């Protein structure tokens, strides 16, 4: 089963829930798609790391061959090319590497070069295969690194946990594309609910079955529970705020591996998810 763990707001506990579910499963694959700040490895501490550089293709224009017909500029739907003086000028962070400019050029003036945008690191943490996508600083899009990280997960009966980026934009969409089930982690606050609604809308649009985990639960705010109830989103787990969990997290420990009570809590959550997802 491919399980995507996501949240609208950052810092709600995606990585906390993801690494604990992988640990509770025993044998699992954990993929960190939060490529701007992949933190799962801080807890899982994978060993025997192998790192691969991820490149994207970018067009290069030969001014000797370019006739100035501008077919490439007109074709680019992302407007990444501007024709200035004698040849197209590329705005690389706007380019989506589609290769269209090279295809439409009638004079063979466009070739492609590779540009590194990040790396994917694979290692093992006990029986958990840990895949970490890391985007290079200053890059505009994490999508190529996310795709490469997801490609490291073979089809398996084992649990695959996809730790998603925060928010509900393109990078999250890419991360949950292949998921069988989406687990939405949220805090019971007005801000938490606002962003929860956005991810809920996204997973609904993509027709993904989903359930919720309410982290730092137990306060007076009930609107998040009300929303889940109204929309038929099962709340699979409520994790009350506890100093013990905060201490374990701050020291880089995985609760399910350090404490039998939490191990049972996440095993039970995993069972509920499997039941909900019919996998």
């Amino acid at each position: 089963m491919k399980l995507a763990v996501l949240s609208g707001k950052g810092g709600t506990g995606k990585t906390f829930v993801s690494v604990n579910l992988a640990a509770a499963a025993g044998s699992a694959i954990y993929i960190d798609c939060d490529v701007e700040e992949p933190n799962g490895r801080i807890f899982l501490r994978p060993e025997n790391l192998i790192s691969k550089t991820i490149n994207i293709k970018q067009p290069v224009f030969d001014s000797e061959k370019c006739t100035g017909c501008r077919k490439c500029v007109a074709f680019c739907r992302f407007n990444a090319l501007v024709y200035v003086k004698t040849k197209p000028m590329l705005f690389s962070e706007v380019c989506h590497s589609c290769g269209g400019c090279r295809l439409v050029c009638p004079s063979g003036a466009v070739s492609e070069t590779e540009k590194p945008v990040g790396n994917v690191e694979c290692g093992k943490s006990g029986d958990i295969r840990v895949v970490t996508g890391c985007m290079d600083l200053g890059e505009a899009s994490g999508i190529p690194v996310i795709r490469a990280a997801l490609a490291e997960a073979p089809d398996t009966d084992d649990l695959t946990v996809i730790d998603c980026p925060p928010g509900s934009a393109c990078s999250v969409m890419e991360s949950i594309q292949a998921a069988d089930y989406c687990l939405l982690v949220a805090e019971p606050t007005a801000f938490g609910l606002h962003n929860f609604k956005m991810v809920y809308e996204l997973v609904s649009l993509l027709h993904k079955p989903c359930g919720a985990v309410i982290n730092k639960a137990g306060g007076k705010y009930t609107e998040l529970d009300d929303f889940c109830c109204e929309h038929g989103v099962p709340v699979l787990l409520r994790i009350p705020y506890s100093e013990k969990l905060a201490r374990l997290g701050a020291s880089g420990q995985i609760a399910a591996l350090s404490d039998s009570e939490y191990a049972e809590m996440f095993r039970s959550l995993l069972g509920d998810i499997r039941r909900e997802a019919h996998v």
Partner: protein
Amino acid sequence: MKIAIPVNENKSESSICVSFGRAPYFMLHDVEEKTTKYIANTAAEAQGGAGLKAAQLIVDSGANILLTIRCGQNAAEALNAAQIKIYKADGLGVAENLAAFLEGKLAPMTQFHAGFHGHQ
């Protein structure tokens, strides 16, 4: 010398548009010929890269100067490569800004914003 200004309407009473890439029109004023024309900004509805597409329009219009309230980094880079100088408009009045520029009272723009990418 041709001066381009992003404007809200294609008529002389129009105000300057606060957006460069998504302005509905560009006014093109030829200082020597004393003529003014308006070009529709086909970039205004672009999903992404509106600033760059608008910069292409300005480059192709033959303008030497752009007077604008704000301008993105990418558009500025394209305009710079085409040796079009960017000046910061002061207020929304078109005639006032044209006069101020010709009297040398407008400053070259030095701050360029990053892309909005769907955010407001």
